[in-house]
């Protein structure tokens, strides 16, 4: 039964991904014009002259004279062979460009996730066990403030004052003096000095969501009979909580994998732009703005793929943990 379920889910991924790819391709090609026009306009703003015959040449070189369907097929065929195409702007293969930034992005993302869990966990449990207390309100409030302030502004203000008060260099993840140096303790310290700003700002938003989810799930469990029974038979509250409801309420962490996977590799775009982090987020935004279509398209596709994989993993994990899920949706009308 379980194997059949997994097989079925994997088979379902194929049409999902196909449709996604078509959708992404369409969305990216929707805006009028193409990268080369953007380039020409940008050069003009600078005072430089774009060589139109060269632009025509490039357009042909990259197959822009062909109909969209043909380009789509070409792109998908490339993707299937692991070829993510070529970035016009960087004049390099997409895989290399994304690869260059992946490590840094993942570092920021993991730090953020850890921060989120460390903060959200105790608050969530406290809020659930002390529902409607001022502590509950206060902590939820704190969690929400991070969500409520637009991140781009928060990032700028943090960065400015970190520079004024602590002398942290502005933007980036390391002081420029260490940029081309091998890893050392001093460099690591410099990284940590910079890392806390994006981690807190990006983490703040996620924390609020996690506190809320944890609180809601725990509240659900706390009202169920088994917990009441456990308490009734004299289990101390802490142990009773740890033993069952907490474990069950953690299910949502598993179902969250689908969201977490892509966010690890894309990072928070807007904050990264403001803080001048060389992560993949700004790369993607910039590619979309300049219509660098293979970079934007292939990276988006990569993210979608990760989501689908994430959802698959979480579904399988849940199915193993909870047999009811396997049977859900089987009934037909």
């Amino acid at each position, binding site marked *: 039964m379980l194997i059949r379920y997994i097989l079925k889910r994997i088979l379902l991924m194929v049409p999902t991904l196909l449709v996604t790819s078509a959708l992404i391709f369409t969305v990216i090609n929707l805006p009028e014009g193409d990268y080369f026009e953007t380039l020409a306009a940008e050069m003009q703003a600078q*005072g430089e002259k774009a060589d139109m*015959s060269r632009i025509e*040449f490039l357009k042909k070189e990259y197959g822009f004279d062909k109909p969209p369907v043909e380009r789509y097929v070409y792109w998908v065929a490339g993707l299937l062979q692991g070829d993510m195409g070529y970035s016009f702007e960087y004049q390099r293969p997409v895989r290399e460009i994304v690869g260059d930034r992946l490590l840094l992005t993942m570092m920021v993302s993991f730090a953020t996730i850890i921060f989120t869990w460390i903060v959200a966990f105790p608050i969530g449990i406290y809020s659930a066990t002390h529902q409607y207390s001022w502590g509950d309100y206060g902590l939820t409030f704190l969690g929400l403030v991070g969500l409520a302030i637009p991140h781009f502004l928060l990032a700028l203000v943090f960065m400015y004052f970190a520079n004024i008060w602590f002398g942290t260099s502005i933007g980036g993840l390391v002081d*420029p003096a260490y940029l081309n140096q091998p890893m050392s303790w001093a460099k690591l310290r410099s990284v940590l000095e910079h890392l806390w700003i994006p981690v807190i700002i990006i983490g703040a938003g996620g924390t609020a969501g996690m506190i809320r989810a944890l609180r809601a799930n725990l509240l659900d469990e706390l009202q169920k009979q088994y917990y009441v029974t456990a308490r009734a038979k004299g289990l101390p509250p802490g142990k009773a909580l740890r033993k069952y409801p907490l474990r069950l309420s953690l299910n949502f962490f598993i179902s969250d994998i689908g969201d977490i996977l892509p966010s690890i590799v894309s990072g928070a775009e807007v904050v990264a*732009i403001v803080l001048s982090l060389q992560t993949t987020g700004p790369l993607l935004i910039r590619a979309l703005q300049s219509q660098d279509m293979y970079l934007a398209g292939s990276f988006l596709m990569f993210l979608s793929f990760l989501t689908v994989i994430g959802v698959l993993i979480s579904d399988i994990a849940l199915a193993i943990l909870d047999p009811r899920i396997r049977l859900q949706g089987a009934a037909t009308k």
Partner: protein
Amino acid sequence: MTQRRPHPTRRTALLLGSAALAGAGLPRFAQAAPFSGTAIDSPFFVDRVASGALPPVAARLPSTPRIIDLEALGRQSGRHGGNIRMLMGDQRDIRMMTLYGYTRLMVYDLNLDLVPDVLESCDVEEGRIFTLRLRQGHRWSDGSPFTSEDFRYWWEDVANNKRLSPGGPPQALFSANELPIFEVLSETEIRYSWKTPNPVFLPALAGAQPTYIFMPSGYLKQFHERHAPKQELAQRVKENRVRDWGALHERLSRMYRPENPKLPTLEPWRNTTALPAEQFVFERNPFFHRIDGQGRQLPYADQVTLTIGTSSLVPAKAAAGEADLQARYIRFDNYTFLKEASKRMNFDVKLWRRAEGAYFALMPNLNAIDPVWRDLNRDVRYRRAISVAINRKDVNKVIFFGLAKESGNTALPESPLYDPKFVSLWTQHDPALANRLLDEIGLAKRDDDGIRLLSDGRRLEFTIETAGENTEETDILDLLKQDFLDVGIKIYPRSSQRDVFRRRIVAGQTVMSAWAGMDNALVTSDMEPDALAPTSSAQFQWPRWGQFIETSGREGERPALPEVVELVRLYEQWRVSSTRDERRAVWLKMLAINADELFTIGVINSTLQPIVASKDLRNVPDAGLYSFEPGAFIGRYMPDTFWFDRPKADQQESKA
């Protein structure tokens, strides 16, 4: 579509003209004399010279280096050492180093004269035969000789190679649609001869974005089908994961954007960092051909580092002292912030002037699709009414602290073609006159809101589009909005993205747009007056007419206004004119027509550009003109002569 031709300059054209006049005269650009003193090397290379990795400095310089007499320029001779830190927004910005280095075959000097730089000299006969002479012993940054072979390689194996240049050689190499005869006279002499004069040739070589007519053949031959062994080349193509040798060659040979650290260069600093990077380190070129009066090989600074980051953070980073020399991404409205920071930090903020004809100009689209608007835009009375309705003083006061100049889109006072008449013609604030002119056109009828009505009953209201480059544009438009309302015109400012903006104008969907005026307003009568006549589809006042001229009538529309036809005629006359007086007359006529007809309505020019420079950095001028062309932003002011006046210990540290 063809490339817009670069501007020729006064001296060249002067030479061409006088040559034609004098008949036999043989004008010559020359300044080099063999250098007899002792060349001084930077301590930067001590180890390398000692180990034999580099020859001593005397052997690295050409026999006739270019001597920069700093005292004559009012600057100080300096010391070697230090690292100039700069901030950039994008890794494509490393081309700024090609601008700041400003090493060209010919360059504009501080007086806007065209002088040889890489070339030792250049002879021009009859304005059509150009003999270029290289410096004996000049070498590329990798030590390989820079000779006429590099010119031959470019001409025969690149410019005339179907794979590498499918469109053929660049426009500056064409005169009357014909290519020159190319001759190699010796190892250091090359000659280009056309049948007709080619006034754009030398200025193209001196351009901020120059036409390169040479390439490092020693390095590039290994990637060229004609020179590299087939198997090896195939192997290299495979290693680099490119389609064919042509793509490989193209990718590795970009001289304007020095992305390939292995590509030899003639610039003062050479890139040592491969893409991608957050920081690019440019190191002094050991074979650079300029020296100061004492014989110190330039550049003074051993390194330049470009740190890449979000461009909007550049002012903040500069204020935190993270840049030693910064103009890019710093705007006038950052001045107060930077100035306050400079009191705490080790930098100064200098105010240079921007050299556009207009920092902000309105461009009525003479090729708008809507016939009513098109006819209105083509009515000179309407354009004059728009212009005199603008309260330029207010704009200057509110946005530029009254420090800019209220002016039409015309030559700046620093240009020999400057005429105060062109500045003030139709730029006074006179709503009464505007009302009278509008009434005269037949727009006297108004609706209940006091908005004038068009001939077909629509309100005289339209959108002015901007490319949304900065908030100043929207602010100026917001100020203009009230001015226009006072004469019964309603405008709606709207900003869009650059490429959308451009496309809409060319398609005629835009009635009026806002953009900068002439790119280069430091004009001389010998520069090409292409900005004053329809010559390109990128001219927002007459995109379709420009396209017509640009494509020799294949696309676009034939200019329809008599004044514009006259401008085209004058422009063509300039292209074949023989004396400088005649050219000056053409220029003045064209400037006069533009000032009177207001095809572009300039609002403000000579706006200020803050330059952040370390307090220790000497020779950075306190005042300067900042423009892409002529002079490559700060390139004309020769950053290779900027030096750090710091105790030794600090320099070591900053090198780290």
